[in-house]
């Protein structure tokens, strides 16, 4: 069977994540990503995505399925889905923005960027740095100079807080390896 089928609707693609997991997706859904679309048009059905982890890829595929033309979702349902979708730490979001941009999914990229933009609207410079984990490459003198040039922008009540889930919290990233099972413990003295 030729892999460059002329019936994209029935074409199943295999996407391979950075963790080497494979995911089967209908081409008609996956081509919302222009990157994937180009590969399909070049005849590929195995799509390696070496810089996207399984966790991110799974969620992105959810997004694509929901936003596919034939998903039958109303605008309200899509909005609700999008609102739920972006509920994640900014650190996570940077991974998603990266993936969405690499895959060329404009709607998703835009959604994520807008969410991020809204988050930092009233934040102080320090908060922005912490949220984005950006290294400050200014010397203290240089920074003072830049600030002084625009002191009006730093006036007023700026939010210095960084929300809990925006900080780095790797231990909550879904690892569920239990080294001890209850059975082992009950009988011990």
């Amino acid at each position: 069977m030729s892999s460059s089928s002329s019936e994209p609707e029935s074409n199943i693609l295999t996407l391979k994540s950075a963790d080497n997991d494979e995911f089967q997706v209908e081409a008609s859904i996956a081509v919302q990503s222009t990157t994937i679309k180009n590969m399909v048009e070049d005849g590929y059905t195995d799509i390696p995505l070496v810089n996207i982890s399984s966790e991110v890829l799974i969620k992105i595929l959810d997004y694509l399925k929901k936003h596919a033309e034939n998903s039958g979702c109303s605008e309200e349902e899509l909005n609700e889905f999008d609102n739920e979708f972006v509920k994640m730490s900014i650190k996570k979001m940077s991974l998603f923005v990266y993936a969405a941009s690499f895959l060329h999914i404009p709607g998703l990229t835009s959604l994520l960027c807008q969410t991020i933009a809204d988050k930092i609207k009233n934040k102080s410079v320090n908060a922005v740095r912490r949220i984005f984990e950006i290294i400050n490459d200014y010397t203290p003198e240089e920074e003072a100079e830049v600030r002084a040039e625009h002191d009006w922008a730093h006036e007023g009540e700026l939010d210095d807080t960084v929300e809990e889930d925006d900080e780095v919290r790797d231990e909550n990233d879904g690892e569920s390896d239990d080294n001890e099972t209850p059975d082992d413990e009950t009988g011990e003295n």
Partner: protein
Amino acid sequence: MEFESDNSDGFDRLPDPLIHLMFNQISDIKTLIRCRSVSKRFNSLVPQADSLLLRVDRVISATDSDDDDDSFLIAFLRSIIKSLHHLVSPSKVLPTPARSQNSPAQILREFERIRNLEIELPSGDLRLEKGTTIRWKADFGKTLKSCVILGFRSGDGGGGEAEFGGGAGAGLKMRVVWTISALIAASARHYMMVEVVNEHKELENLVIKDRDDEGKVVMDKKGLRECRESQCEGEEAEVNNASSGNGVGLWWRNNRTTVPAVRMRMWHEARMELSGGMKMVGATLVVVRPTNAGGERSEVEEQNGDVGLALGAFGEDAVYFEAVERLLKSRSYILEMNSF
């Protein structure tokens, strides 16, 4: 777009075009300028943002006291309308600012290729009697291209029934005052931005609105080009000679571009109740356009053009759109006015 596959975390590894997109979606200039202090990379990318929103904190008028502002408007209007009751009630006095003011032009100079610019003034420009609402939208190029004005008094205790209810001529004074006030406000906003328009050649879209949603000045690509090419100059308002002693850093409400000789088509209804229950007294719709001096357009074309402008002006607001539709059903009157 190049993607690095190294393992650096955070936003440092996102390519520039993505950060650029994010900055465009932030739009708010104050936030963006603050981001310049975050890192050197941000500092170099912020000036590239091309879709911006500038929220103005406060507007300085040429003179400190509001009394002078009052007399400017009233003196001006007195020259047109003979008997004028005291229409204008003094607004809150603006506090004298402690810090130095940055003009929009100065702030915007930091950005190198602005394409879409939205300016949001803190409030509307008109001081109106309680219960009176005015909404306007003006399109500018080098000079005024069109202005649509909707004015009314709220029908619940807003008063003015006597004024507007007396037949065709009643309330005309008020309607003209509303119209002229809106035109002055619009041309003042236009004048305010001329410097910016001239400095930013890539600007394609400019909107000057206010937080009260009272008025909107719009300049599209063509209009912006026309303004630049003619290097539009403003004229100082007749009565108020705002001397520019304070120079850079202050910008004026009382300097404005000249309003050309115009033709105004006016529709009005003494009383109107909308589908949502809202009652309007003295509801007035005016479409203002420069006089068709060369006579290139026929009467019918003129009227259709005016109707089209009216329907397009307040499309986003269902209530006002309905008011416009209703008003368009009544007879219209033409007034002409000299340039001022």
